[in-house]
């Protein structure tokens, strides 16, 4: 009798668990980068009424987006860092990746009465390595004649969560400082030698605005929208450059390898802002998986073919992202045409 009861209860429980029937969804879904979410959401909102294709996007972080694509629970993943060979090998099937827009990392600071400062790579690395600890350091005065720096401890702020912004920023530091490269390296999150962490762009920006003497890095799309004051950076060609959509676009002008794996930090273009980077979308190369219909694959390709088009790229600018240069758009279109359904290319 006891065992019968147990089985009966188990049956009730299991039937409850099993009732989550797999629905044949016709909407496209994606997940990943929070950095690019405002752009995607706005563009998808325009795409849906024009085509009738619904798209949902979850900004769960680039790592989460890659995981979701790996588990085949989304149609596309979005990541601020491209997949390297090892990560590609870990995917269950061949994946293609292509950039959709770019952005930059700006250095925000809080010094009352000072609205603009100039920073050099050496000073920036010194601050983040914990070697320059006070704003009255002669390193600042040298490039900022006329600016009166206070005798105030520098509070270094970084992102405590993993982030594409951190990836771009630490990649830049690794390029300009051998010591940083050796001691810290670059990644979506690293072991910071100095400073305090805050979560997300709003967390970092909020901490800086509330702490006198603070400096930190913030995504350009957030800084531009929130009108945060930020530093001019000395670029590789020796010019102090203010981060703007034009100077970020200049950073992306260089040649793009056919696998699109490129970091555009420390660009040698004379007009380029040096701390910039692309964001990528990941799709399976063979779209017939998990019993997906041809229609779903076609819709997905239609979406991304449109996302790199002029119309969608104009939306990117509206929400403070930097559009792709024409050469990268052409490359993206070529990559999209390699995606197949049952071995046949989907887009003509």
């Amino acid at each position, binding site marked *: 009798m006891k065992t019968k009861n147990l089985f009966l209860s188990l049956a009730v429980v299991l039937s409850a668990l099993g009732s989550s029937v797999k629905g044949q969804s016709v909407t496209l879904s994606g997940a990943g980068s929070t950095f690019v979410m405002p752009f995607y959401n706005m563009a998808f909102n325009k795409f849906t009424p024009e085509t009738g294709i619904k798209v949902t996007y979850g900004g769960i972080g680039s790592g989460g987006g890659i*995981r979701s694509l790996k588990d085949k629970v989304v149609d596309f993943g979005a990541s601020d860092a491209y997949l390297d060979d090892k990560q590609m090998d870990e995917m269950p099937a061949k994946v293609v990746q292509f950039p959709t827009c770019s952005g930059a990392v700006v250095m925000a600071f809080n010094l009352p009465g000072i609205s603009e400062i100039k920073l050099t790579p050496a000073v920036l690395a010194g601050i983040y390595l914990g070697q320059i600890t006070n704003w009255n350091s002669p390193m600042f005065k040298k490039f900022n004649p006329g600016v009166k720096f206070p005798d105030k401890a520098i509070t270094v702020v970084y992102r405590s969560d993993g982030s594409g912004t951190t990836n771009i920023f630490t990649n830049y530091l690794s390029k300009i400082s051998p010591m940083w490269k050796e001691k810290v390296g670059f990644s979506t999150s690293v072991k910071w030698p100095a400073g305090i962490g805050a*979560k997300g762009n709003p967390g970092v920006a909020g901490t800086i605005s509330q702490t006198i003497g603070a400096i930190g890095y913030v995504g350009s799309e957030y800084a531009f929208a929130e009108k945060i004051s930020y530093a001019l950076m000395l670029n590789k060609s020796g010019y102090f450059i203010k981060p703007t959509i034009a100077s970020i676009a200049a950073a992306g002008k260089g040649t793009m390898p056919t696998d699109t794996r490129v970091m555009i930090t420390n660009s040698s273009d004379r007009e380029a802002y040096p701390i910039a980077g692309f964001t990528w979308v990941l799709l399976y190369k063979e779209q017939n998986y998990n019993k997906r219909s041809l229609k779903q694959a076609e819709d997905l390709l239609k979406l991304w073919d449109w996302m790199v088009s002029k119309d969608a790229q104009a939306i990117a600018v509206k929400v403070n992202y930097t559009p792709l240069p024409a050469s990268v758009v052409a490359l993206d279109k070529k990559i999209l045409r390699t995606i197949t359904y049952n071995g046949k290319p989907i887009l003509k």
Partner: protein
Amino acid sequence: MNSEKITKYILFSASLLILIIAGGMVYSLIRGAMPAFDFFGWKFIFSTHWDPTQGHEQYGALPFIAGTLFTSFLALLIALPMAFSTSLFVAEYFRKKRIAVVLSTFVDLLAGVPSIVYGLWGFYTLRPFIVELGLSPQGFGIFTSGLILAIMIIPYATSLSTEIITMVPNELKEAAYSLGATRMEVIFNVIVPNARSGIIASYILAFGRALGETMAVTMLIGNSNNIPNGLFGTGNTMASVIANQFAEASGLQLSSLIAIGLLLFAITALINAFGKYIIKKLAAR
């Protein structure tokens, strides 16, 4: 089937479901944490290096275990006298008076304030105040987080111990008074010995809450992955590092974060077990 049986089956399935969920949680935590423990072994618990940089990844949970225990103990230390005196105030000195009702309502209200609101208050109000006092250059750290945690756990410690103190039989107190005991003597010789297991249980409950608190602590502790150097040093807690890094983690880092979740689970269970042991011991006396 009669209603008696139906009720029994429903209750039985419901409790079985909880068991399955709890078991499943432990199972998936252990499974997820295995790669980290396989790779690092015991060093995972005792290493202070947390380096998620690709190429030289290394994970050790000690800074987070230390941060969690420091902030929680500090919170308990601050909350203890306040909760104890509040519950005496409400349950003994001003029992059933209007002021006691108002006070206990406000204390209960504290429990309903969302964690993010405490975090924001700590960030915008408490933190600048600590900077103003010159205790720390930016106001983040163990002390600020511990203080906020203390405010957050006071209602948990207070309301339960108030209940317990109210439950001390009146006959005992009256007997003590009739023997000429003062109010203080009644409190420390009659009420506290009678209610002590319950009072301790309420503090353990509050401590458990402090261990797992995430949002407010993340906003105030400074999120630096090192063992805090002193009361005003910055650090990170187990729950906070999971909240911070889980979304972007993969591979060994993901497994290490799950392992931290498992350790937090174990620490909470251990403290609960210890609490139960104390209660049992005190109750037996």
